[in-house]
Every structure is written in C-alpha cells, then in structure tokens.
C-alpha cells in the first residue's frame, strides 16, 4: 500500500535525522566517509579531465572552447544543489533545533559560494570567445549572480551576532527566503529571452547533448559531489571539535 510505504519512509527519514543529531555518532561516521569521498573525488575528477580533454570531440561550431562546459555545468549544478541542501538543513534546524543541520548550513556555505564563483568565472571565460562579451545582464547570469550574493550574505549574517544561535536562525530565514531564486535560475532560460542557451541535460524531453559529451560531464559532476562531501565533512568535524573545546574550556 502506498500510504503504508510513505509512513514507513517518513519513519526511516526521522530515525536517520535523529540518529545523526548526536555529534559524537556523526563524527565517527565522518571518520569513515572522509577517505571514501577523497578517493571518489580524485578518481572521478581525473576521469572527467581525461574525457574532457582527450576523449570528447571539439564542437562543430565552438571548437575546443566547448570543453569549458565540463567544468562550468557541473559547477553550476553544485552551486544550486548545495543551496537547496542548505535551505533544507535550515528548515530542519529551525523546526527541530537539529544541531548538525544548523552546523551543516554553516559548513557548506563557503563551498557553495566557491562553486558559484567558479560557475560565474568559467561562464565569463566561455562567453568572451563565443558571445563576444564577458558579461550580459540576462536573466540566467543575473540570477546566478544573485545566488552568489545570497551565499555571501548568509556567510556574513551568521557571524554578525554576538549570540551564535541568533545568527544561525537569521541565516536560516535568509536561506529559506532565497530558495525562490533556485527555480528562477533553472527556468530563467525558458521564461525570458536570454543570451544563455536553454537546458541541455536536465530537461523533460531528455538530454539534447551529444552522447560523446555526456561522460566527462557526469564524471566531473560525481567528482565535484564527492569533493563537496569531503570538504563539508571536514568542516563539520572542525565545527564540532571547536564547540567541544569551547564547552570544555
């Protein structure tokens, strides 16, 4: 029965959420996951680079410049993915006072900002030879710039209060408000006339990207996800160790 399954599913999710509310248990799990993430990130990024430079063909119109796609698109996916996970964590933190969820948003923010910056700069370096300009104020580029400002604003806001909890809560509300920008980024290329091209891979009608160009995109996307896992686990462990020190001192 579908209803029964969804109740069981919700129970499993709640058990998972409560199990990792315990920072000591989480730190132990993170100890196992860090080397796994590091290995996956190294292998898949190396594979991605190999395919991006040696196995994928130059584009019939863009030539070798198309290879920028294999770093630009996975970075853009990460920029949006990290923001959505941070907003979900903020909601979990605000509703259930889940300590790790609050720490997660703090730990992930600089990594999300870095991927957004990479997306913007690599896009600019792709735009100059292909469009003849570094930047245009079209809907896609502008909404991604807004995403970067949301990350920067969150990072500034959470540390702007003497009371750390107030900073975390204020940052959480900002994340929830800013989540409206994610569908705007995704659908900007359909809602408005943009210089930026429409979605090529993640779209209802299936991928329009040539098969020879998919492996480097997917390898890099997996490599970036694992890299994010590695860095965010390290940053979470850092935050837990810092708080433990503060309590003991």
């Amino acid at each position, binding site marked *: 029965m579908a209803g029964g399954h969804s109740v069981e599913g919700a129970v499993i999710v709640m058990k998972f959420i409560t199990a990792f509310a315990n920072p000591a248990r989480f730190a132990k799990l993170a100890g196992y996951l860090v080397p796994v993430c590091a290995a996956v990130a190294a292998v898949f990024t190396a594979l991605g680079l190999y395919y991006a430079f040696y196995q994928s063909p130059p584009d019939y119109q863009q*030539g070798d*410049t198309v290879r*920028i796609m294999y770093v630009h698109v996975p970075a853009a996916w990460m920029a949006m993915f990290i923001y959505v996970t941070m907003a979900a964590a903020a909601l979990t933190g605000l509703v259930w006072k889940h300590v790790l969820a609050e720490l997660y948003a703090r730990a992930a923010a600089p990594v999300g900002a*870095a991927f957004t910056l990479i997306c913007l700069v690599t896009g600019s*370096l792709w735009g100059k030879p292909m469009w003849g300009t570094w930047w245009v104020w079209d809907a896609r580029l502008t909404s991604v710039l807004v995403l970067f400002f949301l990350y920067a604003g969150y990072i500034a806001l959470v540390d702007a209060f003497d009371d750390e909890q107030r900073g975390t809560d204020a940052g959480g509300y900002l994340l929830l408000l800013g989540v409206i920008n994610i569908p705007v980024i995704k659908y900007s290329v359909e809602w408005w006339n943009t210089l930026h091209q429409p979605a090529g891979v993640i779209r209802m009608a299936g991928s329009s990207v040539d098969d020879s160009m998919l492996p480097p995109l997917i390898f890099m996307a997996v490599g970036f996800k694992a890299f994010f896992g590695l860095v965010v686990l*390290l940053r979470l462990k850092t935050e837990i*160790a810092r708080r433990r020190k503060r309590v003991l001192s």
Partner: protein
Amino acid sequence: MTHAGYVLAAYGFAFVVLALVLAHSIHAYRRAVRK
C-alpha cells in the same frame, strides 16, 4: 587570447579555487583538533 587559452584559464581558475577551499578546510580542521 586563443581558444585554448580560454579553456586553460577556466580550468586553472576552477581548480585553484577548489584547492584553496580544500587547503583552508584541512588547515582549520588541524587547528581545531590540536590540543
């Protein structure tokens, strides 16, 4: 700049930023766990 130059600049920038993020995270972790 040639097309290859743009490609190398894009990859160079991306991986320098990721290396800095990783280095900062490792540095902060080591400092936090130091007795």
